[in-house]
C-alpha cells in the first residue's frame, strides 16, 4: 500500500517540521533568558564591587557592612576597575584577558554595557565618584547556564526523535484503518467480472462519507455497464437469429431443390424464394449497419433541404420497388407557406426513415392507397402518413419501436423489426416528434412534427 506509506511519511515530515521549529524557538528563547539573567547578576556584582571599593567613605558603617557582606559572596566572578586613562587599577582574579580600550569607551558612553568574549560574559558599568570615574567590569563563565542549556538541548532532541517516530507509527496505523474499507472495496470490485455483473457492492448505510459516495458511483457504473452488456447481448442474439432464419431457408431450399432434377417452373419458383431471402438478409444487414453508425457517431452532416423534394425522391424509389402502390400526396396546407418545407436534416438518413414509414404503411394495408399530407401545425411542419390497414393494438403501441419487435399477428407479413426502431432513432437525431395514432382494423396515422424553424429561410 504505497498510498498509506506515503501518507505516513508526509504527515511525519510535517510533524517533524513543526516540532523542530517550536523546539528551536524554545531553546533560543531559553538561552536568551539565561544569558540575560547572568548579565544582570554580573551587573549587580560590578555595582557591589564599586560600592565596596569606592563608597567606604560615604556610607555609614551599618550600610557598608551590608555591602561588605555582599562583596564577600563574590567568589568566582572576576572584577576589574579601569581609570580614566584605561589603566587597570584593580584586579580581583588571576585570569589572563585583555580588554580593548574601545569597549571601555563604549561602557563610558552607554553607562552600562554587556558583551561576550569566547564563553565569558562581561557586564561593565561606568561609575562616577569623588575618587574618580571608573569603569567596573564583572565577568564570568555561566557554567550552570551552559549545563542547563545542554540538558535542555538533549531533552528537546530526544523528544523530537520520540515525537517523529510516534507520529510515523500512529499515522501509519491511522492510514491503515482509514484505507481498510478501500482495500475491501478493491477486493469486492475485483470479484466482479462479465459473468456476475448483476452483483453490487455493499454500502455501509450508517456512514455518509466519500467512501459510500464512491461505492454508490461504482454501483451506478455497474448498472450502466450491465445494461449495455445486456442490450449488446440481446442485440447479438436477435441479430444472429434474424440472420439465421433466412440463411436456413436458403440452405433448405437449395438442399431440397438440388436433391433431384426438377422442372424449369419449379427452379424458377425456388430461385424466387432464394431471391426473397437474400433481399431479407441484405435489408437486415443494412439496417444494422445504419444503426451501429447512428450509435457510433453523433456527427452526421446536416444540410438545408426541401422536404417535399425528399418526399418525391422517396416516392420515386417506392414506385420502383412497389409499382402498384397508390400514394396520394396533399400539399394544400403548405401551398402558401413554402418556407415550412425548408428543413435542416441529413438527407440520406431522413429518406430512409420516411421511406420505412411509407413502406410499412403500404405493407400493412395490403397496398391500399395511402395518404400523405404536409400540414402547418402552429408554425411547425407536420407530415401525416395515413393508411387504412390492419392498425396496431393499443397495448403494442409502446413496443413497436423496440429493436427486433414483431407483432405476433403479423408473422405472415415479411419484416424483421428493425425499420421502425431505426426510423425513431433518426427522427430523434433530427428532433422530429413522432406521434402514432392507430385503431386496430381501421388503420394507422403517423404524424411527424418537425422542429420549429429557427431562422427565416433564404430567398
Amino acid at each position, binding site marked *: 500500500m504505497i498510498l498509506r506509506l506515503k501518507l505516513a511519511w508526509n504527515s511525519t515530515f510535517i510533524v517533524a517540521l513543526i516540532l523542530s521549529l517550536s523546539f528551536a524557538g524554545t531553546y533560543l528563547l531559553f538561552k536568551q533568558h539565561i544569558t540575560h539573567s547572568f548579565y544582570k547578576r554580573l551587573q549587580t556584582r560590578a555595582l557591589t564591587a564599586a560600592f565596596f571599593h569606592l563608597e567606604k567613605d560615604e556610607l555609614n558603617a551599618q550600610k557598608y557592612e551590608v555591602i561588605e557582606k555582599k562583596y564577600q559572596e563574590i567568589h568566582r566572578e572576576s572584577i576589574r576597575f579601569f581609570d580614566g586613562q584605561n589603566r587597570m587599577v584593580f584586579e580581583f582574579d588571576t585570569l589572563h584577558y585583555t580588554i580593548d580600550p574601545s569597549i571601555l569607551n563604549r561602557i563610558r558612553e552607554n553607562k552600562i554595557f554587556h558583551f561576550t568574549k569566547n564563553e565569558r560574559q562581561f557586564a561593565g558599568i561606568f561609575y562616577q565618584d569623588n575618587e574618580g570615574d571608573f569603569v567596573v567590569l564583572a565577568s564570568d563563565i555561566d557554567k550552570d547556564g551552559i549545563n542547563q542549556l545542554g540538558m535542555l538541548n538533549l531533552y528537546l532532541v530526544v523528544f523530537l526523535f520520540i515525537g517523529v517516530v510516534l507520529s510515523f507509527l500512529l499515522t501509519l496505523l491511522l492510514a491503515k484503518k482509514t484505507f481498510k474499507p478501500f482495500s475491501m472495496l478493491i477486493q469486492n470490485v475485483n470479484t466482479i467480472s462479465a459473468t456476475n455483473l448483476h452483483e453490487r457492492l455493499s454500502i455501509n448505510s450508517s456512514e455518509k462519507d466519500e467512501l459510500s459516495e464512491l461505492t454508490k458511483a461504482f454501483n451506478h457504473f455497474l448498472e450502466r455497464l450491465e445494461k449495455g452488456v445486456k442490450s449488446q447481448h440481446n442485440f447479438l442474439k436477435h441479430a444472429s437469429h434474424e440472420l439465421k432464419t433466412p440463411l436456413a431457408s436458403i440452405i433448405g431450399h437449395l438442399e431440397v431443390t438440388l436433391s433431384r432434377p426438377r422442372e424449369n417452373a419449379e427452379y424458377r419458383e425456388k430461385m424466387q424464394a432464394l431471391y426473397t431471402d437474400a*433481399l431479407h438478409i*441484405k435489408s437486415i444487414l443494412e439496417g444494422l449497419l445504419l444503426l451501429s453508425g447512428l450509435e457510433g457517431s453523433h456527427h*452526421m*452532416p446536416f444540410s438545408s433541404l*426541401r422536404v*417535399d*423534394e425528399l418526399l*418525391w425522391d422517396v*416516392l*420515386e*424509389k417506392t*414506385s*420502383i*420497388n412497389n409499382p402498384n402502390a*397508390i*400514394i*396520394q*400526396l*396533399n*400539399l*394544400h396546407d*403548405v*401551398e*402558401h407557406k*413554402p418556407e415550412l418545407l425548408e428543413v435542416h436534416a*441529413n*438527407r*440520406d438518413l431522413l429518406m430512409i426513415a420516411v421511406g420505412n414509414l411509407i413502406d410499412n404503411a403500404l405493407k400493412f394495408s395490403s397496398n391500399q*392507397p395511402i395518404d400523405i399530407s404536409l400540414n402547418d401545425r402552429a408554425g411547425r411542419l407536420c407530415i401525416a402518413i395515413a393508411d387504412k390497414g390492419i392498425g396496431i393494438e393499443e397495448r403494442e403501441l409502446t413496443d413497436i419501436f423496440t429493436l427486433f419487435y414483431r407483432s405476433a399477428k403479423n408473422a405472415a407479413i415479411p419484416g424483421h423489426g428493425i425499420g421502425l426502431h431505426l426510423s425513431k432513432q433518426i427522427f430523434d437525431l433530427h428532433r422530429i416528434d413522432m406521434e402514432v395514432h392507430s385503431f386496430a382494423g381501421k388503420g394507422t396515422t403517423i404524424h411527424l412534427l418537425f422542429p420549429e424553424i429557427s431562422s427565416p429561410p*433564404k*430567398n
Partner: protein
Amino acid sequence: MTKILLIEDDDRLAAFIQKGLEEHLYSVTRISTGYEALAVTQDISFDLIILDIMLPDISGFQICSALRERKITTSIIILSALDTTEEKIKGLQAGADDYLGKPFHFEELLARINAQIRRKSFEQGITDSQKYADLEINIAEQSASRAGKTLFLSPREYKLLLFLLKNRERVVTRTQIAEAVWDIHFNTHTNVVDVYINYLRNKVDKGFQFSLIHTVKGRGYLFKHKEE
C-alpha cells in the same frame, strides 16, 4: 439502341449487370480498368456510363473529373460499395449525375438509368444556355436567372420551369405537366401541380416587371411573354 459503357473490375458483378441490361435491350460495352475507359471514350460516344469507384488503376472520381474536363456531357452513374454521404458528395462534385451504393436492386439501377436517359431527352430541345424574354436557363449548371437575378429553385421547380420553357407559348394541361415532371403516377385529385406552379410563380414572376406563367381557365397553364 441506347449505348451504355460499363466500367467495373469485378467480373461477376459486371457480367450480371451486362446480362440484365442486354435483356432490357441496351447495348453494353464492358471494360475493367480506368485507362481503358479514358481511351475508349475518346473514340466512341455513349449515352450513359456506369462507373465503379475502386478500380485497379485510377479511381472512378478521377475518371469522372477527366471526362467532364474533356467536355463529355454523357450521364454518369457511379456504382460503389463506398456508400457514405461524403463519398456521394465527392462523386457528384466530380461530375457524376447519380450515385448508387452496392448492393443494389437491379430494378433500381434500371430505373435510375431510365431516369437519366429521360432527363437527357427532357433537356433536348433546349440549348445549353436558353434565353426567353429576360429569363435564362443554364442546363450544365442546372440554374436559372431572371433579369440577371439568380432564382433559387428546388429540383422539381427547376424541372417544371424547364418543361414550361420547352412548351413556351403553348397551353399545357395539368396532366401533361404531372406526367412529364413527376415520373410517378399520383392521384389526379391532388393539387400537386397547382401547388408547384404557385411556388414557381413566387420565385419566377413575383417582383418582376411582367409575368411569364399564366393560368388558362379550365385548360391549364401558358408560359409566355406578353406585356400587360
